[in-house]
């Protein structure tokens, strides 16, 4: 499959009164047409800033894309004019946001909002767009769709709103869908429904998906590849099964240990990662994870490791081999 999106050395900074916040630090990744990619990491590690930069939606200023290229089908999105970028957003690349409670405009009907992309990009009139919106709502499993188009967001439940949000993102048949923690704001049973829906749509529509989450459990059956981010760096990149079965970066390992599991004995305490992610205003000279790492060595505090291939389709940014606990 040809490459759809190729992000190279993306660097994003925010100018604040206290100094420059290094939110994303020269990350590179790519996704093929129809491919699926999971981006994992804890809050504040640059996952959202990364994809908002790809969409050129970070507020500028204070935000600044300091370096890098975002090649979409060979075209650098960072060099497009604002008008050209508007034609890409929603039509080529669509987004689903974290909180369906706040991502809908409260004073416009659901129908009006779902049809927005259809009218903006495909020039449909109201009747055509409504017709299509009914099909979309039915596709995401909202019963009585024609009626519900006239409803306002507050008349939808959280799960239904997220379904409507997905319908809205899919309206113009985008080639890439970016889902920014789409299940985080939902309760667990609804989460499972939305994940099942996303899997079904992925198989049926064949678009590429970037799924951002801080919950490793969510993406298990969802994506082919995973990148793990920590304080604006990619620390591990692998096929999804390898991430679960042979994680090679100490951070990924710690993340996996912190997932609660029903098959573990009751008395056991849940493992946590001690400490806090580093202040993005003052990144340490060495590996950003070093202060919290169980395998930390002298070198980790002085030099930041770059991403290196350690096995087939498996890259990590670490000086240590976690299997032996010694330097690689």
């Amino acid at each position: 499959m040809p490459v759809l999106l190729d992000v190279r050395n993306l660097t994003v900074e925010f100018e604040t009164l206290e100094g420059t916040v290094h939110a994303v630090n020269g990350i590179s990744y790519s996704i093929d047409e129809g491919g699926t990619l999971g981006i994992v990491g804890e809050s504040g590690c640059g996952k959202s800033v990364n994809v908002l930069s790809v969409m050129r939606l970070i507020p500028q200023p204070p935000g600044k894309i300091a370096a890098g290229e975002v090649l979409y089908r060979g075209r650098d999105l960072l060099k497009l004019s604002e008008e050209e970028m508007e034609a890409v957003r929603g039509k080529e690349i669509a987004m689903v946001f974290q909180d369906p409670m706040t991502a809908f405009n409260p004073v416009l009907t659901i129908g009006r909002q779902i049809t927005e992309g259809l009218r903006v990009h495909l020039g449909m009139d109201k009747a055509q767009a409504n017709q299509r919106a009914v099909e979309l709502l039915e596709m995401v499993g909202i019963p009585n769709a024609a009626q519900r188009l006239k409803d306002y967001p507050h008349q939808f439940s959280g799960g239904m709103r997220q379904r409507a949000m997905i319908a809205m993102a899919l309206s113009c048949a985008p080639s890439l869908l970016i889902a920014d923690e789409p299940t985080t704001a939902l309760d667990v049973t609804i989460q499972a429904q939305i994940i099942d829906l996303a899997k079904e749509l992925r198989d049926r529509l064949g678009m590429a998906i970037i799924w951002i989450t801080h919950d490793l459990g969510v993406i298990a059956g969802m994506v082919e590849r995973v990148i793990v981010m920590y304080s604006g760096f990619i620390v591990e990149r692998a096929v999804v099964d390898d991430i679960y079965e042979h994680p090679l970066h100490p951070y990924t390992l710690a993340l996996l240990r912190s997932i609660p599991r029903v098959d573990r004995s009751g008395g056991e305490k849940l493992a946590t990662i001690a400490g806090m992610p580093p202040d993005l205003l003052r990144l340490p000279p060495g590996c950003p994870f070093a202060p919290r790492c169980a395998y930390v060595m002298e070198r980790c505090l002085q030099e930041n490791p770059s991403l290196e291939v350690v096995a087939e389709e498996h890259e990590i940014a670490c000086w240590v081999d976690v299997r032996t606990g010694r330097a690689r």
Partner: protein
Amino acid sequence: MAAINSEVADFLAEAAEAPPITLRELFWRRFRRHKMALFGAVVLILLVVYSVGGSLFFTEAYANHTDTNLRLQPPSREHPCGTDTVGRDILARTIYGGQISLLIGITAMLVEVIVGIIVGAVSGFYGGLADSLLMRVTEALLIIPQIFLLLVMAKFFAGRIPNLTLLGREFSGSVVVIVLIIGLTSWMYLARIVRAEFLSLKEREFILAARATGTPNLQIIIEHILPNSIAPIVVSATLSIAAAITTEAYISFLGLGVQAPTATWGNMLEGAYNYVETAPWLWIFPGLLIVLVVLSINFVGDGLRDALDPRALAR
């Protein structure tokens, strides 16, 4: 028994089919509970009916007809509200004057709302240099006393705008001047309200979602942010109709407003101060109408504020 059951079934079916409550119904429900606002709305409608419907009984030529033999007549069967200093019928003049006063109130409000929204929206949405420039201009205009601006502009524009014909009636150029100067000296507060709304609304996630859909900025401003800030705009616009009517009244009272023979409730007061005691009918009738219209608009404005307040209990 069977009949009762079918009745219950009917009721349930109806309840199930009843559409969920819309924002409009919610608004009307809240407005209705505001008794003074309802009273104001009724008085306002009556005043509109009075000044529009009254023209079926009197012609404008009659309202502007002078007869110095009949000057300063007290109310009589012939002239129910008396006559003025040059013998014009006051009842007919309050009818035609009402049309002009209400027209001035509404059009001045439109000028104010259009300028205020454009300045506030550009300022709040784009920020940066545009914001700084527009807000400095707004502040500069705010620190000049409005009466001073009004008088200077009235003097400056007087006689420069020709009379115009609209809907088969001729309007004095001075009406257009008044509308423009009232509108152009009162948009600053609205611009600040709109700017504040835009500043907070543009950071909301649904605006980010709209941008992620590829919606152009102009469409985001008009179709996404503006409907969310409509409540304070409507309230402010309503109250500014009343303000425009009073403003017109005092400029006209000072003789710089709408020029005779065109009547307004304001310019009917001009000259009446010489006869405050001797011919009270000169000021009582137009004065009463001004008080009524301003009062009822303010009541309606209060009702709208309560009905449109998103923080009010949703009942």
